[in-house]
C-alpha cells in the first residue's frame, strides 16, 4: 500500500482507507483458490448453509480460514447476483452455480489436480431454453 501511495502521490492512510472499504481487496493473504459462498437470504433459502457445511467437512476449514497447504480459503460473502441458480459459489474469477454435493466434490478435486474446472458457468442465462435439457445432467 505504501508503494501505491508513493506512485499516486497520496498518503498511505488514504490508500488504506479505500482498501478497507471494499470487500474484494484482501488485506490478509488468501489461498490459491478463494472460495466465496453466497450467504444471502435467496441462496440460504435453497441451501447455502448446507453448502458451507459440505465444504467445511471436505476441506476442514470454516469461513475465514485457509487450509494448511495454502490451497483453499473459504469465505461466506453477500449476494453474487446468481439467486436463480442457487446454491452457488465463486472461486477466484469463476462462478459455480446450481451446486450439489457431487459437483462440489468434482470441483474441489479438479482444482486440486489441474487448477481449473469445466463446471464453471459461462455467459449466464437462466432459464436456458436451448440447453435446458442438456444442462440438467
Amino acid at each position, binding site marked *: 500500500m505504501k508503494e501505491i501511495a508513493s506512485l499516486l502521490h497520496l498518503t498511505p492512510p488514504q490508500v488504506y*482507507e*479505500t482498501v478497507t*472499504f*471494499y*470487500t*474484494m*481487496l484482501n488485506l490478509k493473504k488468501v489461498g490459491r483458490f478463494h472460495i466465496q459462498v453466497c*450467504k*444471502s*437470504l*435467496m441462496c*440460504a*433459502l*435453497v441451501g447455502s448453509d448446507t453448502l458451507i457445511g459440505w465444504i467445511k467437512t471436505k476441506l476442514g476449514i470454516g469461513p475465514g480460514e485457509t487450509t494448511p497447504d495454502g490451497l483453499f480459503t473459504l469465505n461466506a*460473502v*453477500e*449476494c*453474487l*447476483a*446468481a*439467486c*436463480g*441458480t*442457487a446454491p452457488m459459489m*465463486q472461486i477466484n*474469477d*469463476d*462462478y459455480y452455480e446450481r451446486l450439489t454435493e457431487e459437483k462440489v466434490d468434482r470441483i474441489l478435486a479438479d482444482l486440486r489436480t489441474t487448477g481449473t474446472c469445466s463446471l464453471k458457468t*459461462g*455467459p*449466464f*442465462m*437462466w*432459464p436456458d*431454453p*436451448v440447453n435446458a435439457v442438456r444442462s440438467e445432467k
Partner: protein
Amino acid sequence: MPKYEPILLKNMLQPGYTGSLADYERTGGYQAVRKVLGKMAPTDVTQLVMKSGLRGRGGAGFPTGVKWGFLPKDYRGPRYLCCNADESEPGTFKDRQLIERDPHQMLEGIVLACYAIGAEVAYIYIRGEFVLGATILERAIAEARTAGYIGKNILGSGTTVDVWVHRGAGAYICGEETALLESLEGKRGLPRVKPPFPATHGLYSKPTVVNNVETLANLPHIINRGAEWFASIGSPPKSTGARIFCVSGHVKRPGNYEVPMGITFRELIYEHAGGMRSDKPLKAFIPGGASAPFLTPDHLDVKMDFESVAAAGSMLGSGGVTIMEEGTSMVWAALRLMEFFYHESCGKCTPCREGTSWLVQAMRRIVNHRGRMEDLETLSDLCKNIAGRTVCAFGDAAIAPIQSTLKHWRQEYVSLIHEAEAANLLRPAPVGARH
C-alpha cells in the same frame, strides 16, 4: 401459459447466438444508432424517451426522459454517462444476463443515451465479482470500436462517444448513484448529500446521468419501434414497457422472466416460474429485492407495476421476486437480510451504521432464544429512528425486512421469545438505544 414477446431477451434466446457484433448486426443491431446520430436532434431523442414512459429499471423507477431533462441546457463543458452495472441487490440477476449474453444491446443504448445528453465519455461501473461480464464487455467494446460504433466521429456523424469499463471491488452501496460516482473517482463509496443532484454536479462535479443496464438496453428498441409501441405495452400510462423479473427461492423454475408490467404476481410465480417447488403453500414473498418489504399470500393478485405495489405497502424495486414456502422462519429470513444490510452499510450516517448493528444484535438474540419482550419495542424504535434520517435510501431499505415481518408475522417473534422464557434460558438485559 401466456407467451409474451421477448424484447430484451429476444436475441439471446435464439439458439447459437453468441453476443458477438456480427450476430448482433445480423438481428438488426445498431439500426437505432444509424437512425438517430446526426439525423435527430438530441432534445428530440429525450422527448421520445419521455413520451415512451420508460422508468429506471435499477430500483428507484425514476422516469428516464425526465432525468435526462434535468441536465443544464447551456452548459458547455464535459458531461458524463455512467452505466450502473453494479448489480448487488439480493434477489436480482437480470443485468448479469444482459451483460454476458447480449453486450451490444447495452452498448447501443449507451451510445444513444450519450448522444441525447451530449456526453462524450461513458463509464460502465461493473461490480468486481462480474469478471466474466467485464471481459465480455471489453471484448464487445473493442469490436464496436473497430466497426466504428464507438469512438470519434461515429459513422461519420461527427458524434464522439468513448466507453470505458470500470470494475468495482465489492460494495453494494456503490450501486447508489452518488456512491457510484465517488467510487469512480477513486474514493470510498460514500453517498453524497443530495441536492446538488448528479444532473448538475455529478462525476468530478460535471453534469452526469446514471442509468441502469436494463434501462439503457431498452433504448434501441424504443428508437426502432417507436415510443407509442413501448407505451402500449405494460401498464400505461405510468408503468410502461416490459421488465425482466428475477424469480428465486422456493419455486420450481427460478430464473429471469421478461414480462409486461402489470401482470399479477400470481401469474408470474405460478405460470411462468412453475409454482411452488414442493406441496407446501406460499407463505411470503418479496416483490423487489432485499430492500422491498415482505408481502403475504393476500397480495398475490397485486399487479406488478410501480403504483400498485406501492399501494400494497411494498415497492417494485429491482424486480427480484423471492418466494418463501410454509416452514420458513420469517424471523430467520429477516435476520439474514439484516446481516446483509449490516455488512454493506457504508458507515457515513450514524443512524444507519449504529442502527443496523443494534438491529442485528437484537435479532440474533431473539433467534437464539435469548430475546425479551422489550426487544420488539427496541426493534420498532430503532427502525423509526433510521428511516428518513440518512443521506441515502439505504437506511429506509435496511429496515424494510424487519418492519414488514414485524407487521405481518409478529406472532413468530413473540413465540420465539415465549420459548426462551419457557426454557428459562439466561437472557441478558438488552443494551439498547432507548435510554
